[in-house]
């Protein structure tokens, strides 16, 4: 399959996507890196110049930074854990012989089609709102105080919203993977006397490894940059309680109008993302080779 001419042709065919992606990545990154060493405030345009690592130092000294870092990891980790566990359970349920498979699938997949600002605003206004939300109405129905979700539990609320958006994705991949498991394997295990639980543990779960790996990879890619949901709901608050790294950078750029600091934050975020990517890709690459 590999003569020299096909090899050469292959190079030419890969080139366009490599080049455009490289430009798309490197040019903004270089500019960000440049800004990150500059004093660059939109509110005082006359003052500018090199400031060395000042912008970075500011970031590392800011208590918000460590909070934002923790929040980012919480968000990614929390959503991954929720969607994978619930996804496996729901997929197990839908894999049973139930009536109306087709319609069930349509219902389950729906949140995936909802754009993030809409998803966030549905939850914020129609469900979590302390006066008019459905949860508040339910609480009042039981004679309880409405819970102030976004004020008292901002991170868990955001995690719940994002998990709702991504649950269909995880569920459907896992369901498809489960359906590709041959029933002969399960029957053989049953003949060997394996209980339902050990069939799950020793046959179904290993069969799902690859699917779970892909779920984690794809979701992490998207979750690391989550922004819209926070912007629409908590605006990173109260205080900085639900500020993630992307949101903190956004605040520096748009609210404080300090491009230099925002750029430094951007570089930190990129380095962080690359660390995550490195470990993720390494483990994923192994699984995908098969």
């Amino acid at each position: 399959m590999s003569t020299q001419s096909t090899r050469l042709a292959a190079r030419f065919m890969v080139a366009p996507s490599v080049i455009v992606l490289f430009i798309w990545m490197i040019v903004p990154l270089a500019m960000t890196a440049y800004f990150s060493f500059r004093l660059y405030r939109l509110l005082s345009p006359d003052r500018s110049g090199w400031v060395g690592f000042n912008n970075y130092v500011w970031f590392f000294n800011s208590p918000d930074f460590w909070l934002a870092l923790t929040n980012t990891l919480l968000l990614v980790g929390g959503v991954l854990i929720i969607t994978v566990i619930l996804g496996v359970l729901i997929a197990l349920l839908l894999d049973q012989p139930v009536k109306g498979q087709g319609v069930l699938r349509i219902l389950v997949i729906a949140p995936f089609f909802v754009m993030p600002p809409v998803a966030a605003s549905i939850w914020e206004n129609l469900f979590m709102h302390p006066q008019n939300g459905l949860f508040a109405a339910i609480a009042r129905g039981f004679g309880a105080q409405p819970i102030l979700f976004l004020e008292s539990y901002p991170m868990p609320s955001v995690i719940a919203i994002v998990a709702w958006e991504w649950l269909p994705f995880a569920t459907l991949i896992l369901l498809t993977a489960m359906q590709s498991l041959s029933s002969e394997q399960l029957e053989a295990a049953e003949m060997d006397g394996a209980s339902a639980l050990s069939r799950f543990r020793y046959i179904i779960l290993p069969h799902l490894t690859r699917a779970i790996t892909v779920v984690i990879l794809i979701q992490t890619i998207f979750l690391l940059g989550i922004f819209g949901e926070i912007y629409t709901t908590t605006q990173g608050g109260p205080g900085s309680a639900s500020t993630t790294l992307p949101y903190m950078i956004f605040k520096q750029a748009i609210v404080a109008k300090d491009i230099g600091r925002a750029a430094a934050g951007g570089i930190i975020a990129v380095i962080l993302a690359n660390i995550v990517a490195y470990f993720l890709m390494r483990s994923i690459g192994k699984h995908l080779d098969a």
Partner: protein
Amino acid sequence: MGQITLKSVRKSFGEVDVIPSIDLAIDDGEFVVFVGPSGCGKSTLLRLIAGLEDTTSGTIEIDGKDATALPPAKRGLAMVFQSYALYPHMTVKKNIGFPLKMAGMDPAEAEKRIQRAASVLNLTNYLERKPGQLSGGQRQRVAIGRAIVREPAAFLFDEPLSNLDAALRVGMRQEISELHQSLKTTMIYVTHDQVEAMTMADKIVVLNAGRIEQVGSPLTLYHTPKNIFVAGFIGSPRMNLIEGPEAAKHNAHTIGIRPEHITVGDGPWEGVVGLSEHLGSDSFIKVDVPGLGIINVRGAGELNVHHGDRIKLAPAGKIHRFDANGMAMA
């Protein structure tokens, strides 16, 4: 025309020399079979001829013209793959017609050729089906049909029958032989199967670790193998190879006797029967002879011996003699 000549052809994948250097001449109209153990480079050699791989060095000539650098399409060869490699989204007719379409042939002429190929291969009733709706044998015929419509200079087959069941394999083997007789086109055929090699070939090329061990007609290889490797590889069950004092009696390092050249009854060798297989037409027995090791014997008809019997054997045919380097001695 389909004359193919390989001159000092070498192929390496990175560090590994899969084919160190091969010289081979294939005459027009010849049926050449490549045999050899798994991984010895049969497919690689075929693909080099096809142009699907580049040679590392050396030249490949087709009909006297240097084809080493030509892309596969320009070499005028057709290939039948082990997996058939049919286009699943095209009907049988489109599959067979694809090479003609690529060659830009006039549709009416193409249609004629397709019909002719279909009738030769008994596919006329299946022309509108997709490959998924065909049996293994029918798919194989479509793959052959796709090869013959182009009227290539030579056909290349890479283990084309290995996915078929035994009965079908015999049928297809005969069809390919008949095809060769009627088309008289050069065919190069890779196989693992002894019977295919012996029955179909004009010329067998025995390969081992990327080297040619011997080239010759089936019976030449059977009767006068050049070395121990060929002696052991051609013929089934394997030739008995005996070393030590028994070989020394014949002034050789090793002697070889084919299982069918040993008789049961009286003789110099005595041993105990281990495995015995009775097919009715033939009997295969393994006899443990002290000093010689396990000796394979093949007898025509029923040899009335069984596991545990103590019997005597006698060599009754050609004894092949080999020197310490494994080469045949005159």
